[in-house]
């Protein structure tokens, strides 16, 4: 069953994130995709995520499709104007990509091409509307399309530091849903109790909520997130658990798997982020019982 149909029929969806290479060596990407084929409902392919120049997400998405893995492709506003974005969206449909997520772009200054000229011809809400307009057979200039594309389009909520930031994120997310977003990806879950109260607020948006489960690859990463992102809610207890573990890598996998298992009863799906450790996805899914 497709990602879209699973969402529509309230089935739990399992998504995994896979980055395209910085270069043309696609062997790892293809191997990772084969490993999880049939075990996840779709792979989310980011595009120049964190401002790092990589092979474009559309090529990554097509590679996934060729492996028989459904794709959800990131689209964003930093690097392309409305002409390029619309052209790519039409191309994505023709190449078999049926799912999009409109995402926030990391500021150019934070990426690896900080001297590049940012575009931002459209903003996220404008882009969601543009996708909707293309689906109705019109481009942004109002001209008729010869064949309209079809997608389910989602949006995301960025990590937030405090209640005020969350309120602002929710307010923007409400506008994104009004503009046409049909599902929402939320930040990594490290504390189920905190997530429960967060989820209640996000559910008010009226679209399926898909939280992120982030693989803590090391104690250092867990400590870094705990210290730098107070909104992530990584507890001292969680840090202790990783520190005391005789196999910290395995502990991270256990934590991710257990989190997914717990979320299964609460949400419409999960997005698993492994940031380069996609080969660990099968082990995480095993723990999660998926």
């Amino acid at each position, binding site marked *: 069953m497709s990602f879209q149909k699973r969402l529509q029929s309230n089935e739990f969806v399992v998504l995994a994130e896979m980055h395209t290479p910085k270069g043309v060596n696609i062997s790892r990407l293809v191997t990772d995709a084969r490993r999880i084929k049939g075990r996840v409902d779709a792979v989310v392919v980011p595009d120049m995520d964190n401002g790092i120049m990589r092979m474009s997400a559309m090529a990554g998405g097509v590679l996934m499709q060729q492996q028989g893995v459904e794709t959800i492709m990131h689209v964003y506003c930093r690097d392309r104007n409305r002409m390029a974005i619309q052209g790519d969206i039409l191309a994505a449909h023709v190449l078999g990509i049926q799912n999009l997520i409109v995402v926030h772009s990391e*500021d*150019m*200054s934070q990426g690896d091409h*900080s*001297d*590049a*000229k*940012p575009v931002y011809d459209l903003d996220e809400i404008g882009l969601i509307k543009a996708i909707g307009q293309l689906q109705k057979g019109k481009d942004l200039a109002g001209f008729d399309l010869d064949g309209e594309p079809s997608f389910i389009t989602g949006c995301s909520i960025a990590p937030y530091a405090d209640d005020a930031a969350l309120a602002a994120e929710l307010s923007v997310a409400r506008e994104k849903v009004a503009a046409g977003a049909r599902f929402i990806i939320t930040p990594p879950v490290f504390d189920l109790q905190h997530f429960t109260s967060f989820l209640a607020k996000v559910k008010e948006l009226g679209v399926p909520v898909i939280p992120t489960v982030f693989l803590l690859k090391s104690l250092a990463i867990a400590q870094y997130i705990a210290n730098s992102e107070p909104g992530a809610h990584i507890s001292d207890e969680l840090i202790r658990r990783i520190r005391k573990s005789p196999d910290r890598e395995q502990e991270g996998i256990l934590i991710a798997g257990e989190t997914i298992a717990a979320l299964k009863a609460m949400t419409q799906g999960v997005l698993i982020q492994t940031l380069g450790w996609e080969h660990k996805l099968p082990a995480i899914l095993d723990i999660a019982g998926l």
Partner: protein
Amino acid sequence: MITAERKPLEELIEYVRPFKRILLLGCNECVTVCAAGGRKEVGLLASGLHMALLKSGSTIEIREHTLERQCDPEYVEELVPMIDGVDAIMSMACGCGVQELARRFKGKPVFPAVNTKFMGASERQGVWAERCQGCGDCLLGKTGGICPIARCAKQLMNGPCGGSTGGHCEIGDDVDCAWALIWERLKELGQEERFVEIMPAKDWRPGGGSGPRKIIREDLAE
């Protein structure tokens, strides 16, 4: 100078219609030079607003004033005694002046009466043309004093493109090709070798690529 053009009267009427008393505020700097928002234009706009509102059966009290510089807090402070007596301010300064008013008088609606256009120079009486985009890393020393960022439609660093014909840009015969101008000027200066130098992709960070810019002069900052 920063150039500007007055907005259409219809748009301005809609801004001021809800108010009984407004302060119409000119600026004695750039917008005076480009005849968009100086003392004279304040008077003309005040008359225009009065007449247009009278025609639609309403009236408004317009207090006219022109500051030496609206983008400078020191001069804006001069408005303090006038502000309580008005419901809103309509500024004829560039966007910098409008924002300075909004910053200083938080409880007072501020409306722009002009569209700020570009940094430019006067070509002849009544004609101003873009000359600078404030890219923060001036190239003029390499391009014969002619800016390809402000004056080439494609902002080419290594022009001209195939659309350059007879010294004109493909976007219109009334637009000079910046790179044709650069070539002519470098020839005059005997610096033709500069023309064939390949310039690298531009670093857009000083031009605002990394967000709003600020200059801090440690020797002057308080």
